């Protein structure tokens, strides 16, 4: 079955030219939104269940624990699909650059945090925050790169 094409929204048509997305970028935004939505629902859903006394044991505990990771995999897959579908090589180039910024940003953040944990009383950095922070760094740098090359 052919995936429905997310059409250009009213806000897209009205937005500055540099903010307008290619068809592949619109599909990426559509898939990413769903993956993030799933991540939030699964993460908060598990927290809610755990708070209300749901503590599965054995293999079920493992399965529930990795559920949010499925949504993370979906965001990575949507990024990979975008790179495969984007016909504009310069836009692909900007996206790859933004991934490097995202990786660099999260590596700097976690490294600095790690050293701070060793020598100060700063709180523990939960590794489950690694991916959301990466996504924030990557998304912000992608928009910044698109703005710089508008």
């Amino acid at each position: 079955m052919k995936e429905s094409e997310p059409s250009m929204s009213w806000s897209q048509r009205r937005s500055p030219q540099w903010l307008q997305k290619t068809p592949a970028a619109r599909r990426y935004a559509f898939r990413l939104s769903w993956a993030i939505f799933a991540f939030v629902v699964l993460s908060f859903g598990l927290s809610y269940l755990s708070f209300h006394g749901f503590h599965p044991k054995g293999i079920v505990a493992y399965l529930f624990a990795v559920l949010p990771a499925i949504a993370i995999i979906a965001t990575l897959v949507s990024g990979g699909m975008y790179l495969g579908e984007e016909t504009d090589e310069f836009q692909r180039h900007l996206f790859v650059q933004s991934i490097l910024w995202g990786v660099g940003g999260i590596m700097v953040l976690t490294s600095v945090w790690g050293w701070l944990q060793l020598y100060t009383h700063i709180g523990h950095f939960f590794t489950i925050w690694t991916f959301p922070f990466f996504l924030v760094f990557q998304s912000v740098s992608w928009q910044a790169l698109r703005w710089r090359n508008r």
Partner: protein
Amino acid sequence: MKNRLRVLRAEREWSQADLAERLEVSRQSVNAIETGKYDPSLPLAFRIARLFETSIEAIFTDED
């Protein structure tokens, strides 16, 4: 890498958007290539050369 894209485009009185449409790329791509911020791949360079009915070397030079 230097290029004569802006000159060739101006000769035809095309805007960046016009050229982008003909090349089936974004206007940002045309701007990045024109300003030397981005060097196109070989397939895109061929497409540009074909559009202007000239050779790649006549458009792109490796001078700094």
